[in-house]
């Protein structure tokens, strides 16, 4: 915030007269402010401090970062997460847009409603539950689609979870649980597009495909970007999927597959909190950068009176 902005706030406040006294304001936000400092600001600052000091608390410069970055596991964890993100984000953007357009084009009302519910319901199974469910589905001996798995050449669970298969496997799990919510959101956004525009295009001879590509998708761009940014930030945090798979596969999947797992290993296996803080900080910076882009360009504060 610049000082001129602050001045503007002060002056508008004075002109209108305060709606409530500032003492009330402070009293009402005080509890929240305590939590915000304790669990938002302080941990971040503490992670910064740990990342730049050694085990005895002495300033260590970038030593922790260079230790972590030169760890052979770090590079492979970055590759794993990047591959997973690439597959997942592309699938998310393409398929969510496609399915939302289809659901929106369905004229039969109950069918459209059932489709949305079907897409959205798996979202209830987040975290460990959805991973467990997919362990079943991906195990050729128990799977409901074992025929399909056999067709793809998989006869045992270990074959399914070879390292090369893992990024698409995690992407499928994340897509299954997460896509529905976004489909429903996009559907809502499509409903917001004025019928007149679409009708006019149709009268001009545009086909359904042309309307989708030239009118509806460009108008959805903002929502697609929103989905992409939030999903990218969340995806870098990959933890529960590889963690459970590692456990279920007798460590065929390593327990340092993702960055968050590696940070966890540093903290709990190596007792190197400084190294763990360095990795956490790197991840936090990525998230903060993404969220800052969105805050500055997304206009989320435009309800300001």
């Amino acid at each position, binding site marked *: 915030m610049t000082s001129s902005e602050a001045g503007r706030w002060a002056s508008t406040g004075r002109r209108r007269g305060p709606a409530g006294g500032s003492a009330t304001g402070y009293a009402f936000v005080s509890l929240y402010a305590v939590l915000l400092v304790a669990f938002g600001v302080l941990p971040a600052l503490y992670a910064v401090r740990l990342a730049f000091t050694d085990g005895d608390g002495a300033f260590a410069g970038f030593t922790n970062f260079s230790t972590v970055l030169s760890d052979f596991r770090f590079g492979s964890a970055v590759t794993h997460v990047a591959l997973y993100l690439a597959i997942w984000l592309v699938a998310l953007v393409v398929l969510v847009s496609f*399915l939302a357009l289809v659901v929106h084009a369905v004229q039969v009302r109950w069918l459209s409603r059932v489709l949305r519910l079907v897409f959205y319901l798996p979202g209830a*199974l987040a975290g460990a539950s959805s991973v467990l469910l997919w362990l079943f589905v991906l195990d050729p001996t128990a799977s*409901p689609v074992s025929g399909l798995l056999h067709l793809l050449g998989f006869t045992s669970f270990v074959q399914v979870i070879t390292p090369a298969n893992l990024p698409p496997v995690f992407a499928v799990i994340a897509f299954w649980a997460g896509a529905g919510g976004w489909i429903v959101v996009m559907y809502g956004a499509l409903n917001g597009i004025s019928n007149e525009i679409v009708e006019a295009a149709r009268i001009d001879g545009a086909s359904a495909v042309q309307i989708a590509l030239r009118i509806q998708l460009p108008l959805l761009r903002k929502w697609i970007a929103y989905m992409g940014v939030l999903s990218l*930030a969340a995806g870098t945090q990959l933890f529960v999927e590889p963690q459970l798979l590692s456990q279920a596969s007798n460590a065929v999947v390593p327990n340092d597959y993702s960055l968050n797992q590696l940070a966890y290993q540093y903290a709990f296996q190596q007792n190197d909190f400084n190294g763990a803080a360095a990795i956490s900080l790197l991840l936090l910076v990525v998230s903060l950068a993404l969220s800052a882009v969105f805050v500055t360009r997304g206009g989320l504060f435009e309800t300001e009176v």
Partner: protein
Amino acid sequence: MGAQRHPAGRDVGRGLVGLVTLLFVLFFVIPLVWLLLATSKSAHGLISGQPFLPGSFGDLTANWDQLFGFQDGAVVTWVRNSVVYVVAALAVTLVVSVPAGYALALTRFRLRRLLLVVTLVVMLVPNTALVLPIFLELNTVGLVGSAWSVILPMSFFPFGVYLTYIYFSTSVPRDLLAAARVDGCGEVQVFTRVALPLATPVVALVAFFSFVQNWNNFFLPFVMLPSSDGYPIQVGLTSLLASTPAFNPSSAGTQSVQLPTLALATVISVLPVLVVFLFSQRFLVTGMTAGGTKE
């Protein structure tokens, strides 16, 4: 016009879109349906039987008994822990967030703008990003392992503050509050008697999100709680998984868990959220769109 020029091509296109959509419907539905059916099968029936036929009531009760007999009823403890953590966090979240959103929207004070910006930034950071830093912090004050190490971080819910802030900014007329003041209400009464009753929809919305997010939270309790007695059900599932010989051959023993039992545990672990989800599609959309609705 186009329809008359290429009727055949258009039909093929429609058929193709329909087919692809059907494939995705199957993709989303099959795992859920199969999971529900699996709870009523024996371990042998799950592998050899027809996957989409229900098993028997007898096998369901057998699975039930095995699940709740696991480690002397550990599952009951885990579900109870989940309820305690989630309900306590929900209560604190509401007590903290609603007044904060109100104050940010309808009062003026110096730190207001700063508080809004920090709230927004933290809200968009995935909550897993702060888990290890919070662990490191709580570790220094000796809170790790206690119920509070889970409840307090769960109670910090900037998204809830943001939702109430938007709601109070846009849906509660200031004149109404001013009128209440003229009638002699103090500031606290203006909030409790006028603003709060008007805010029921947003309070329900915040409660929904807090409940769903905290019930499904895995990373935070996994890091904070070292002992099985304190696990919520989501983390407890990992113990069950570790005792399932089908996935972990070294675990074959007296306490081993069969696949259908693990399926039953998965269903139980999501049942509360699934029920809430069935009735709240609109809620979820409102929440996800709250961030960017302004054109």
